[in-house]
């Protein structure tokens, strides 16, 4: 749990509230909402404003602005007739560099950009000019990677939180984004602006209702649906909510307030304030896998071959090994693999023997018969489930023997497979050849991962 995010804001990307708010009452209300947010931010103790902008697409991972004082004049590609936007921002370069490093250590592609004349995108320019007009608080801007999906975007936020924690900084998080993003494709009078369609309007209102209830993670989980319903495929999808939710610990009990919701040339523009103070309503279940490091598919198109021989030679990827815990009734043996935590190989209780989970790792060498399931970088490897299962059974036999028990005395077995679809048949075959002979009860579960790069582990109860 972090408490480094003081407030979050959702703000629209088009330049009308900045350049010509007076031309339309709705644009003026958006401007007023920007001003309200500006005052709230000014009154906070924020050390940095972090902007995730959907109008800054990137391809080679994420890009982070790291020019200490980017200065230029921006003209919108569509709305060039509304005027030019001079900007001069103060960037927290130290933070940008640290975030870039943190991204790499969590497995993300990332780089900083610090070039004179780099074209800062319209969403970031509008946000920073209106929310932080005097550059009182330094800013950081991150791009939206066109290929990134939820895992990458979530890990990007976690890396950012790592840095906030390490530097002891408090931040305001901002996503520059449209709600529905379909604009009119014909030129309209300012006074005729409205949300492009009733359907877009209804979806926008639903999303905003969720945000007003503080249900940020629910909106994040609906991102793909929202994208399909009310987003025109521009460059990036409706992904900023993944980032913003992860920046807020994927919570659903924030205190939300919609400061304004209006049309911007047909698109939905909203200014929303999300306060991390709990609204007291129950938090909801977090229903997708949480991700800490990115191990994704981004290199699938690259022909660079993974050197499997290196991975096989170093099966030690994973947690540190421990000497088995000593204690009354504990049973430990040199001929079973070392534990990955402080626990014994087995423990006697009356005439029963409880074994800790046993995997296929080999005592001494720690090698994995049948091969590890992934290499040191987390890339999947081919492995032989039968070999692994046989090695598990052999390890179990050695521990039983050390305790004065044996395979015939096994009462109950719980098996864990990381890939039920792929591995059940092979595992079941070896089972039938070995433990299955002796008739213990058995339960087989599919689980997401084991601490070492193995595919199978068994938990055994036996008589002595």
């Amino acid at each position, binding site marked *: 749990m972090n408490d480094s995010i003081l407030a979050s804001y959702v703000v629209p990307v088009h330049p009308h509230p900045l350049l010509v708010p007076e031309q339309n009452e709705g644009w003026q209300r958006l401007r007023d909402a920007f001003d309200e947010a500006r005052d709230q931010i000014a009154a906070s103790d924020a050390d940095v404003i972090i902007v995730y902008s959907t109008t800054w697409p990137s391809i080679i991972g994420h890009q982070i602005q790291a020019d200490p004082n980017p200065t230029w004049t921006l*003209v919108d*590609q*569509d709305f060039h007739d509304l005027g030019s936007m001079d900007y001069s921002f103060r960037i927290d370069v130290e933070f940008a560099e640290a975030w870039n490093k943190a991204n790499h250590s969590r497995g993300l592609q990332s780089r900083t950009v610090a070039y004179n004349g780099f*074209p800062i995108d319209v969403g970031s320019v509008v946000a920073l000019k209106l929310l932080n007009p005097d550059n009182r608080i330094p800013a950081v801007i991150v791009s939206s990677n066109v290929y990134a999906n939820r895992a990458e975007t979530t890990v990007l936020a976690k890396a950012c939180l790592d840095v906030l924690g390490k530097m002891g900084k408090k931040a305001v998080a901002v996503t520059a984004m449209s709600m529905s993003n379909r*604009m009119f*494709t014909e030129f309209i009078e300012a006074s005729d602006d409205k949300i492009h369609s009733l359907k877009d309007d209804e979806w926008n209102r639903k999303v905003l209702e969720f945000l007003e209830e503080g249900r940020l993670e629910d909106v994040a989980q609906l991102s793909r649906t929202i994208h399909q319903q009310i987003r025109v495929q521009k460059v990036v999808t409706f992904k900023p909510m993944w980032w913003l939710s992860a920046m807020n610990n994927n919570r659903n009990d924030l205190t939300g307030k919609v400061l304004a919701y209006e049309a911007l040339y047909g698109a939905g523009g909203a200014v929303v304030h999300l306060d991390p103070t709990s609204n007291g309503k129950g938090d909801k279940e977090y229903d997708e896998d949480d991700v800490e490091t990115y191990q994704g598919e981004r290199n699938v198109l690259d022909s660079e071959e993974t050197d499997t021989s290196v991975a096989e030679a170093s099966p030690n990827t994973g947690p540190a090994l421990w000497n088995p815990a000593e204690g009354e009734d504990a049973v430990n043996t040199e001929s079973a693999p070392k534990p990955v935590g402080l626990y014994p190989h087995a423990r006697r209780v009356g005439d029963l023997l409880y074994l800790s989970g046993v995997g296929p790792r080999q005592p001494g060498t720690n090698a994995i018969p049948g091969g590890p399931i992934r290499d040191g970088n987390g890339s999947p490897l081919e492995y032989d489930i039968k070999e692994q299962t046989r090695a598990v059974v052999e390890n179990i036999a050695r521990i039983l023997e050390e305790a004065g028990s044996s395979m015939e005395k096994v009462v109950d077995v719980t098996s864990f497979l990381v890939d039920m679809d792929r591995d059940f048949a092979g595992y079941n075959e070896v089972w039938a050849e070995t433990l299955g002979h002796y008739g213990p009860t058995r339960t087989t579960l599919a689980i997401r991962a084991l601490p070492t790069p193995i595919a199978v582990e068994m938990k055994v109860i036996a008589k002595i």
Partner: protein
Amino acid sequence: MAKGSIVAGCLAPHPPHLVYAENPPQNEPNSEGGWEQLRWGYERLRDSLAKIDHDVLVILSPHWQTYVGTHFLGLSHFEGLSVDPIFPNLFRYSYDINIDVELSKAIHDKAADAGLAVKMMNNPDFRVDYGTITTGHMVNPAFDKPLVVISSNRSRHYYSVEVMQEMMMELGRATRDAILESGKKAVVLASNSLSHRHFTTESDVPEDMSREHIASHAMHLWDMRIIDYMRTGQAQRIIDEMPEFTEQAIAESDGGGLTWLLSTLTVPDYPAILHGYGTIIGTGNAIVEWPCYAHEEV
């Protein structure tokens, strides 16, 4: 006034990598070369165009993206620094270009008559997109001929490839009519690549050619299919297959440039000249010329 003409039509992609690899004085970063196949292709295109008398280059670039109508640069001169937002490490280019505003306005007016939403871009602070600058540089590094610069309307994203094609066919006809009426000799250029699946990583040395190849076999097959149609005078088939090509090859033709180009050439049934083909971080790029002067009354 003599009748104007389109003397050549070109597919002239805009990877900033090619400018970077060339180390021209206008570009800040330095390289050790790279992507020579494509750069030699551009050399052949330049030689070819040098032999054809022309007054103006008309470019449609997918990197000036407009969602509300099609826009035209409307001032006679633009200069500034163009920094590629995706590859700022490769492309920071000082440009100085002249616009044939008269012809721009004429195409704008014809397109408006045809019912398209159009607008002139008259803001002097406007930064010209890097696609236009890159294509402009590779075709005519001296920039000593005026340009007409047309934005890429993103109708594909709002509607479909079919709607995009209808609009771009119309824009192509308007462009052609305006050129013919202008009395000028024009080269028309679609600034887009073919298959457009990028790698998502970059080598430490971006110009390391041992890392360069097409993103996937499927992309290669699509590129070769389209190039084959070009070389055998089957432009209509490109138009016909554009929806599948654009979807499956994630092709940059989604910006409308290729359809517009073929329309300005009245969907040519004569063979195009392939000056070069190569990949840029996995995307397929072809440099192609339709030698109209040899096939049409000029």
